[in-house]
């Protein structure tokens, strides 16, 4: 593992290009200090996030997955985040059946201007994952890819 064992956990974030990725940029420009665990994958829209990506990330080694898009009704593509919300809510309910604590997955909305909010989202989610601890030591899962 290339993450710094003991100091960080693996958290993967899927961020929509228009709102949340911009919000994370805004947080950076504003120098809002955040925990470093999160790794960001840029997608055009939260509606592009296939729930399988989340499951794959968790089963393959991630300790937490965060999806963040535009606020409902503020989607760059009209309704993409509504699709995302429906799918991701369903996913949240299904995770326990896959042996995954649903708290390891979180989805939220952050707009491009909400740098401070982004910082809080990252800080809170990272804290929550650290409270849950590393996923794969506790719950030995067969790797699938």
């Amino acid at each position, binding site marked *: 593992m290339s993450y710094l064992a003991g100091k*960080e956990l693996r958290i993967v974030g899927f961020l929509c290009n228009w709102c949340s990725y911009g919000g994370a940029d805004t*947080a950076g420009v504003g120098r809002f200090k955040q925990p*470093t665990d999160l790794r*960001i994958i840029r*997608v055009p829209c939260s509606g*592009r996030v*296939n729930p399988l990506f989340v499951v794959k990330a968790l089963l393959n080694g991630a300790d937490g997955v965060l999806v963040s898009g535009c606020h409902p009704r503020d989607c760059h593509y009209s309704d993409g985040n509504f699709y995302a919300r429906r799918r991701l809510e369903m996913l949240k309910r299904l995770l326990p059946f896959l042996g995954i604590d649903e708290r390891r997955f979180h989805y939220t909305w952050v707009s491009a201007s909400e740098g401070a909010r982004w910082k809080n989202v990252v800080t809170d989610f990272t804290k929550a994952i650290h409270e849950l601890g590393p996923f794969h030591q506790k719950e030995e899962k067969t790797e699938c*890819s």
Partner: protein
Amino acid sequence: MRVGVFICHCGNNIAGTVEVAKVAEAARMMPGVAFATTYMYTCSEPGQEEIKEAIKREKLDRVVVAACSPRMHEVTFRRTVEKTGLNRYFFEMANIREHCSWIGEDKELNTNKAIEAIKLAVEKAKQNKPLFPAKFKINKRVLVIGGGVAGMQAALDCADGGLDVVLVEKSPSVGGMMARLDKTFPTVDCSICILGPKMVDVSQHEKINLYAYSEIEEIKGYVGNYQIKIRKKATYVDWSKCTGCGACIEKCPSRNAFDYFNFGVAPARAINIPFPQAIPKKAKIDAQFCRQFIKGKCGVCAKFCPVGAINYEMKDEIVTEDVGAIIVASGYGLIDLDKLPEYGGGRYPDVISGIQYERILNASGPTSGHIERPSDHAEPKTIVFVSCAGSRDKSIGIPYCSNFCCMYIAKQAILTKDHIPDSRSYVFYMDIRSPGKGYDEFTRRAQEEYGVQYIRGRVSRIYPKGKKMIVKGADTLLGTQVEIEADLVVLATAVTATTDARTLAEKLHISYDPHGFYVESHPKLRPVETNTSGVFLAGACQGPKDIPASVGQGSAAAAKVLSIFSKDTLESDPQIARVNTNICVGCRKCIGTCPFGAIEEQQLRDGRIIANVIETVCAGCGICNSTCPCGAIQLQHFTDNQLLAEVNALCLT
């Protein structure tokens, strides 16, 4: 595959908290990476040259730049690699500044994070395929939303540049807030005298098609090809016949209608023309105050109209216009006085807002420019101005400065002295914000030449005592409480987004900030662009702004539109969905989910029905991609394989 990795120091911005040399060293070890280096400023000209040389020298076929946000420089570097003959989509960017060096405090953790961000980008780049944009024709007409000074400027500049302009104004006349002002700072020239000619130009310009008293119903399409539905609200007056003679207004028996133009300073008639210089100068009926609509009988206006223009049966009408670009200049709103209960606004008639005072000062206003207070029409001798009435007030959710109140208060205080030489004006202020050209001199003039008393402190309460209003404030420079017995109190009420700003943004697919102001593409370098290509901003819809700034933005937005319309075709973004005809089973799920109607059925020669993406309509969101049960439809540049490569780069290794 030979990937080249270029790591930017960005001066100290990145190198200060990330060990870039170590990052480069780690990058060299990544599978597929043939070359990795660091550079002080990769985006500089020599920085870009270095990339080009390295591509040739090292025979690189994929390029990763680890620097700032791709939202900042992706376009720059794509252009750089393209110049060497490489497809621009063979380029990937790793954000190690906004998402890394600026937010993490531990150098070791930051360095590691930067390495992982590059690994992710390298894996993605290895999966990238060449993509080629198509060209499409554009409709060189422009829609301007809002007929205030910013919108009119934009419309006139576009029209003078030869474009057909559709101008949509919500209220019955163009002119916006500026048409309500008496004078303008810092020159104290008459507002309508400088705005009037522009309003006439708008109405007479052959290239401008004005829809007054109309609103945007629906917006469909994309840059170059928008279809707009406009709701023409029922005026109950046939404007093709109305001559604006005013006979109907004179006879209207319903004399207690709310006067929107005058912000309720005096009552209006149910049928009205907002102000003498209105463009178009046509009457309209406010149905909620009209007896014909409330009681079902009256008909006075119809009886007196000399041209028979009154039509009580009129309905809203929807018209469609096709345009290629949109300029949003929808303006601002003001908080209601009753948001400030400690000031008694709305409860006591002699506590009014700055815009109401502006109407009282105005020669064409309800008092014909005579200053009188609402309660008893007496001429006030002591006038107190309260700045930041709601602005910079977190407790009511308005933490920002409203930008122009300091200046208009100084102007109103000066005008008050001009109107009533034996009056005394007091201004409660926290800071005097006057950074424009000639602005600070102007606020000094108010104090030095006109004897306006500036008191540094906020007002806590305003209450009536006899015929006076007691203003209880602080003078923090004296370090004490002060009280003024005023005849009239003017509150510089906070500027807000318009009440329907959010709804309009949602129709336009542009973002707004927590206060409802529209978000520009870049706060410094792209101030009139939005993140939706083809949609531009002008004026106070983006944030509180005075007249010069609004006019400047109107022209800037027009220049942006003229520049995209200078070509006959636009390049389409090839990052769109594509169907693999061999895999598609024709389940039609994607057709149902596409928000843009960009997917249609297509029958293959063998009779199979499959999905087909209409290239010019697809906006590239990828919703279809995550809907497709068999992975047949893939969003180019963000395919399942490409995203999974990123996931695996983070998790599996």
